[in-house]
């Protein structure tokens, strides 16, 4: 399992990376592995409000569905439309396949750095 040192993490296995006031959000390698083959992603629309700790969409595998929980509060600036046709990107490149970009970030969940997240996964695993 890989963990990207440049990102922050939630207990529900999303990653977030903030640059220039934009928070980029995706799911971790641990999450994609637990889900299995991702077959569909339910995405919000640009302009939607997201709230830290609340669901903004979900990912489906064949026999499971899992909420996507936003690490931050703000407004969705962009969604990764490529995931609609190629959800498998979440399996093959979890840290490259971002899901949403959030602007006007005004609140954050309690986030872990890479080391803490690694320890957290070790406990969960």
């Amino acid at each position, binding site marked *: 399992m890989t963990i990207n040192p440049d990102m922050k993490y939630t207990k529900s296995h999303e990653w977030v990376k903030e640059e220039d006031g934009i928070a980029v959000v995706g799911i971790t390698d641990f999450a994609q592995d637990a889900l299995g083959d991702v077959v*569909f992603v339910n995405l919000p629309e640009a302009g939607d409000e997201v709230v830290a700790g609340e669901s903004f969409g979900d990912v489906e595998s*064949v026999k499971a569905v899992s909420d996507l929980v936003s690490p931050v509060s703000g407004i969705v600036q962009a969604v990764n439309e490529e995931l609609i046709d190629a959800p*498998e990107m979440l399996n093959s490149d979890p840290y490259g396949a971002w899901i949403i970009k959030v602007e006007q970030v005004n609140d954050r969940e309690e986030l872990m750095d890479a080391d803490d997240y690694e320890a957290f996964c070790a406990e969960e695993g």
Partner: protein
Amino acid sequence: MKLIFEKSVPGRHSSLLPPCDVPAFELPETRQEPLELPELCENDVSRHYTQLCQRVHGVNCGFYPLGSCTMKYNPRIDEEAASLPGFTNVHPLAPKASVKGSLEVLDLAARYLCEISGMDGMTFQPAAGAHGEFTGVLLIKQYHDARGDKARTKIIVPDSAHGTNPATAAMCGYDVVNVASAPNGCVDLEALKAVLGPDIAGLMLTNPNTVGIFDENILEITRLVHACGGLCYYDGANLNAVMGHVRPGDMGFDCIHMNLHKTFATPHGGGGPGAGAVGCKAFLKEFLPKSALMEGEGHIQVRGFAGNFLVVVRALAYLLTLGREGVPEASANAVLNANYLMQKIKGSFTPAFDRVCMHEFVLDLSEFKKETGVSALDVAKSLIDNGMHPPTMYFPLIVHEALMLEPTETESKETLDEAAEVFRKLYDLAHTDPEYMHAAPHHAQIGRPDEVAAARNPVVRWVKA
């Protein structure tokens, strides 16, 4: 096997209708798209569907121990009753005086089912179990609304419940409060007490529960829910265990649905039609659904007309056959068969709860999987190679690597002995050749289908090449 469209030959047809004996009428606007349905003669159609039929496994083909689904034998006399022209050729809006037979069918079925369930009123409008749940929870909602009690926004559902229960509560506008089960699969009274309060509209429960155990605290459970002002809904999925022995109404439940296509032997038809009769105590009768066109406005309604009438006809024929002696006999033998099969399988696989069960039991294959690498899914698929329909897999969610078996009362001792022998053989095979089981089935219509491909790139209709 080819699709019916691939067998089409332009110009081929059957002769079914006479020439039109009145002047043709030209409608102002007609369809522009071509109508590309298959063109076949009657023999083509007959052969095609017969081939399809040979690729179906019904209860008449072999053992079907599908937990929670009560796949009992479907008597032929019930089918004959349902095909009588006096039932099939009757219009739902024909005058009341011309449908006395239909009304009596509903009346008799309602009386018998009220007696079996301990309820006072019954509707047959719901078309399936989940539809019955929806109707039942709407009775609860109307009851609270009629009293002006708007604070009740939550429904309690145990974590062992069927997926339809939480989905139903959500469709009825309620927040779902999941309550963890006790280690024996029964309701954890302390966990229940912790969530009870003035915001609880009701509880949805099945008893015996989804692991096949009769919850001995049932009276205390329903008392606690009533004490906080909530009502109790009985999911009749497991009624086949207790008919004629215990009544949901006597357990403290206020309303109930019964799956006529499980407990009362009407066929599943490859997924439907079923019928979800909903019963209730007298104080809820005023809230039962009615048809706007048959009975007037002012009531809830969950489907057109009076429901899946021909399914009720079948269930009535079944009830008349069994009668007061046969109904409890059916349940007792369903329980006996389940316990006997569990006892026979226990030598190899491990029951999740090693105690007397009701009409079904759950195997826990998690240790077995650790030992052999063979999963519940592998065992299920290997059963197909042995001509047996697999049990319900991975349910309830509280048991890992679960296989849930419900033999029903209509299986003989030999069938159960043979099934146990197949389980024993597979147990041994898992220890000697697990790879073979990972790749099962080997002798079925197809191997394991690629469900990931199906979901990622859905092909849900045929398209002309």
